[in-house]
């Protein structure tokens, strides 16, 4: 076992060349088997097709033709075989090339594929800062530039990986569990291990392997998709189902061969990496301690992210442990690795205390702490929102609780019954929405009325609208948004011309007072999106990185801060920065805050439109940031709450109404 480990540079080169050759042999074998099985499968599907046609066609001549084909049918046909072979090889190569080109951006692409979040040097989280320090130390020790560091937040296990096409442009990623559970020595050992992968060229080789493996595995993915879209395949009949089934089987062959390829190179390289890590850190107990903790923890090193299977050879420890086939392991057994580092190891792993409830550790910091350095603040007794920590706002998105449901019943009871009836018809719904957004000032209202009179939907109904406005004037602030939500379905009943007219009139109504509040803007935006759904078939989530939507988030937070603190510039600035601080990537760019009294319609509109295209993870952070921005002072008015809910709705991350914790209700 020790004889296999070569720490001599030339011997390592020799080993690397030999393993490359083995890899190619395995890959060629995999492609060969796949070609044969696929060709047989398609031939079989064709046979099924001919025989069903031959036996079931009513038209005698056509049936004759098929029977003729059936009689001359042979399973092995050289021309067909050759053609299919070339076709399949082209497919596999194309898939591999596409995947490799998507990975061309470097190690960061792999990290983001597995759900990683980049952390920067100015982070305030102490464990992240410690990680960055350790990475910098290792970079000095090994003589390469500091790689980009990522954290896999969603993983509670202890694992890490390094990826990158160039030594000078690579990325190191670490799971959240590693940050929380390992001490500094052990973290150093793990990072040293990853650095040795980078230096030995493993990171590059492994990334190329992901691309190549994708070519073999993607047929299985397609096969599974054909079978899962039940109606589509059932309509096309038996041959397609057979093809789908066979593709899945081929895919599993591909996955198996891919796994074999992954583990063939990995095990030896893991030993080498362990040895190099000791060479860098001069401390074998650190790495040994990390491995012991993996052995003792219930989460182990198993990665949950769906994309991790194709990258399982990159990780520090076994990411997908196989119970039956031990030879498919991508890493040598833990006990063996530990014994090489610490000969006194007796095989007993120290049991680790797992704190399962702390999965989202990043949200457990109370927000008072971030801006006020841990001092307890005197919050005015009247504020009913003591109970809500802005950090928990994100938890409430999409998660209505029992209290929310009970509260919505009280909401419905507080709205006059007439109005609930009116809202069910398109005209009524439009009238109610106009009434809600009409100005309270009589002068402005009188200038809005003629426009309303001419509106297509509510022509001549202005006194009706005024009546509704009167009924709604006593309505609590926090019932406005639920009422709009109730009114929206009926609006779908308008014709498209009426919808356009409705929106135009609404726009002009909102504009009569000369300025656009963020509330009005968001309502208009939501209604526009609702009444003009985009025609995209596929969910158009295009943006996965903060850098592309940075400006939009800044615009949104600025508008929110200015609205919430219209009187006090300094407070608005503080609120803005509190919000920005929640997104480290943006905070690193130190955005400048400009106080604008009037929110710019176009800018916020564009910002919201772009943020809709961002991934849900980005939107989650945006809502988190908005929550911190809105709540940064002690006084959280109902307006700010509703604003937060409106923005969340605009971003399609619905926030249930805030539950009142105090006995007295807010007056409108």
């Amino acid at each position, binding site marked *: 076992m020790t004889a296999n480990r070569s720490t001599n540079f030339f011997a390592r080169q020799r080993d690397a060349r030999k393993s490359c050759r083995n890899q190619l042999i395995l890959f060629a074998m995999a492609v060969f088997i796949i070609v044969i099985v696929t060709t047989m499968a398609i031939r079989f599907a064709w046979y099924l097709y001919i025989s069903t046609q031959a036996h079931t066609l009513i038209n005698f001549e056509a049936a004759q033709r098929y029977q003729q084909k059936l009689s001359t049918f042979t399973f092995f046909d050289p021309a067909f075989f050759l053609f299919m072979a070339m076709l399949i090889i082209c497919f596999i190569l194309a898939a591999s090339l596409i995947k490799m080109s998507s990975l061309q951006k470097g190690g960061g692409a792999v990290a983001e594929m597995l759900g990683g979040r980049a952390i920067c040097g100015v982070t305030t989280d*102490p464990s992240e800062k*410690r990680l960055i320090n*350790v990475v*910098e*130390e*290792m970079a000095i*020790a*090994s*003589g390469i530039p500091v790689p980009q560091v990522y954290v896999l937040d969603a993983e509670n296990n202890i694992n890490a990986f390094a990826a990158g096409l160039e030594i000078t442009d690579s990325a190191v990623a670490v799971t959240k569990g590693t940050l929380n559970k390992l001490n*500094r020595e052990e973290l150093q050992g793990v990072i040293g291990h990853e650095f040795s992968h980078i230096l030995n060229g493993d990171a590059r080789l492994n990334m190329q392997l992901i691309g190549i493996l994708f070519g073999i595995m993607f047929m299985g993915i397609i096969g599974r998709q054909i079978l899962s879209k039940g109606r589509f395949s059932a309509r096309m009949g038996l041959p397609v189902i057979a093809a789908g089934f066979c593709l899945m089987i081929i895919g599993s062959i591909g996955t198996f061969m891919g796994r074999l390829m992954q583990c063939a190179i990995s095990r030896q390289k893991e030993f080498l990496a362990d040895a190099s890590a000791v060479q860098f850190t001069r401390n074998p107990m650190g790495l040994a301690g990390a491995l012991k903790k993996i052995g003792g923890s219930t989460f182990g090193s198993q990665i949950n992210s769906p994309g991790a299977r194709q990258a399982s050879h990159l990780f520090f420890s076994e990411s997908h442990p196989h119970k039956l086939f031990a030879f498919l392991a991508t890493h040598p057994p833990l006990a063996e690795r530990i014994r090489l580092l610490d000969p006194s190891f007796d095989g007993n792993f120290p049991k680790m205390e797992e704190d399962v409830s702390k999965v989202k550790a990043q949200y457990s910091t109370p927000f008072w702490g971030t801006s006020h350095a841990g001092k307890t603040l005197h919050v005015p007794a009247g504020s009913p929102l003591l109970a809500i920590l802005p950090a928990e706002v994100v938890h409430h998105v999409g998660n209505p609780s029992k209290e929310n449901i009970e509260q919505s019943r009280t909401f419905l009871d507080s709205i006059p019954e007439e109005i609930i009836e009116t809202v069910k018809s398109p005209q009524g719904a439009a009238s109610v929405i106009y009434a809600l957004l009409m100005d309270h000032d009589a002068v402005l209202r009188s200038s809005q009325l003629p426009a309303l009179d001419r509106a297509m939907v509510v022509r001549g109904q202005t006194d009706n609208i005024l009546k509704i406005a009167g009924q709604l004037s006593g309505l609590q602030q926090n019932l406005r948004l639920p009422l709009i939500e109730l009114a929206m379905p009926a609006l779908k009943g308008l014709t498209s011309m009426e919808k356009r007219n409705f929106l135009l009139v609404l726009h002009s109504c909102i504009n009569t007072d000369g300025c656009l509040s963020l509330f009005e803007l968001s309502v208009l935006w939501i209604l526009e999106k609702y009444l003009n759904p985009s025609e995209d078939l596929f969910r158009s989530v295009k943006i996965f990185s903060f850098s592309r939507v940075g400006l939009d988030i800044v615009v949104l937070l600025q508008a929110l801060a200015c609205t919430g603190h219209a009187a006090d510039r300094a407070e608005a600035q503080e609120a803005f920065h509190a919000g920005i601080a929640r997104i480290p990537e943006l905070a690193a760019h130190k955005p400048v805050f400009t106080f604008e009294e009037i929110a710019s319609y176009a800018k916020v509109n564009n910002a919201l439109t772009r943020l809709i295209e961002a991934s849900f993870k980005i939107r989650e952070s945006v809502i988190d940031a908005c929550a911190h921005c809105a709540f940064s002072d002690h006084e959280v008015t109902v307006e700010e709450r509703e604003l937060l809910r409106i923005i969340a709705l605009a971003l399609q991350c619905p926030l249930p109404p805030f539950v009142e914790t105090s006995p007295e209700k807010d007056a409108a």
Partner: protein
Amino acid sequence: MEELTSTENKISFARQAYNDAVTAYNTSREQFPDNVISSTFNFKTAALLEAVEKAEERSVPKVSFT
């Protein structure tokens, strides 16, 4: 505390990296084919970095933040 540890570590790692580089240079200077070139052009061995602290500087300092 973390910053102190990190700084000390960085210094020691930098020293270690330098010494590793010097060792690598010295060994390659003696191996074929580099030894031919080094003897022709009279390449000298590089000096390893020696510890220069006095005895009291080597002990762990006591740090308190109060």
